[in-house]
């Protein structure tokens, strides 16, 4: 194994540790204690907040920058996805339609 490969392996193991521990520690620590009611209620609002923050601005970015022009297919595909989800409450259909709209918009 050459020096460069050895260095990369060392870096990846470091990356693995700093990725894994934030995933591990809350699960280990918090699943073993009875959380105060206020924290439980706060946690109940967290999923919606996280999902929203993952969608925006990620879905409307192009090449790392927010693009609100009409030529950004992501905006339309996202709008259609929300529409299908609200109308049908069907996750698979939402994913398929969103992906297809995104695909078609890039062809035209």
């Amino acid at each position, binding site marked *: 194994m050459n020096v460069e490969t050895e260095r990369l392996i060392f870096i990846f193991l470091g990356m693995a540790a700093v990725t894994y521990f934030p*995933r591990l520690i809350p699960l280990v620590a918090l699943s073993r204690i009875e959380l105060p009611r206020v924290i439980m209620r706060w946690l109940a609002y967290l999923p919606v907040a996280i999902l929203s923050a993952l969608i925006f601005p990620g879905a409307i970015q192009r090449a790392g920058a927010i693009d609100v022009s009409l030529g950004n297919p992501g905006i339309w595909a996202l709008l259609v996805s929300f529409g299908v989800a609200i109308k049908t409450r069907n996750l698979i259909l939402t994913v398929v339609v969103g992906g297809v709209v995104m695909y078609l918009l890039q062809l035209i």
Partner: protein
Amino acid sequence: MNEVKHNMMKKAFTDALPIILGYIPMGAAYGILARQSGMGLFTAIFMSIVVFAGASQFIAVGLLSGGATAFEVVLATFFVNLRHVLMSASLSPFFRKVSRRIIPFIAWGVTDETYAISIGRYHNDEVDHRYSLILHYTAYASWITGSVLGALAGFLVPAALQSSLEFALYSMFAGLVVLQISDRLLLLVAVAAAAMSILFSFFMGGTWYIITASLLGATLGLILESFLTTEPQRTQS
């Protein structure tokens, strides 16, 4: 196999489908990029096996080809993946009765996508840790498969198809958030978190804008809840 268990496993596999469809092309894109940057075949695949975190792997490849130090790469990875603390914390109440030996295996697979899918299931369905194990390791396997295909064969999906499959993960998040919004207060939390995340993305690095917007969004929900006495108080589990 009893029916409840059978249904749960079926749910896990069907829920994993959109993740598989997104992870394989994304993993392949990573594999190709890593090889193009001059990384060896084994080394490129090794990163996917030990790290399992899409965005930070792309960033690492970019940083490494720009000559970054080990410390810089590890630090950037830490900050980009710190958001999983919130997801792990949010999942934790559902693993009260799960053995300490199993939790580390579940934790390994907490990604944006597996979290987004499973949190809704835990809130609304009868699922337990076996559901998470199947979902997480199916996702992990597809991430590695994609990486191997990209690194080994230069497996490349046409650009339009690639970006559509990756975008479908956002459609998945959109569908999931809609399913989670069951009243006006939750809608308000969603809109506020989205607005804050967009705003913060202009001046916060890493994924701090996601973390901060999520924290503040959930806090806003909690504060408003105590004002709106007509709203039923929400609890997990």
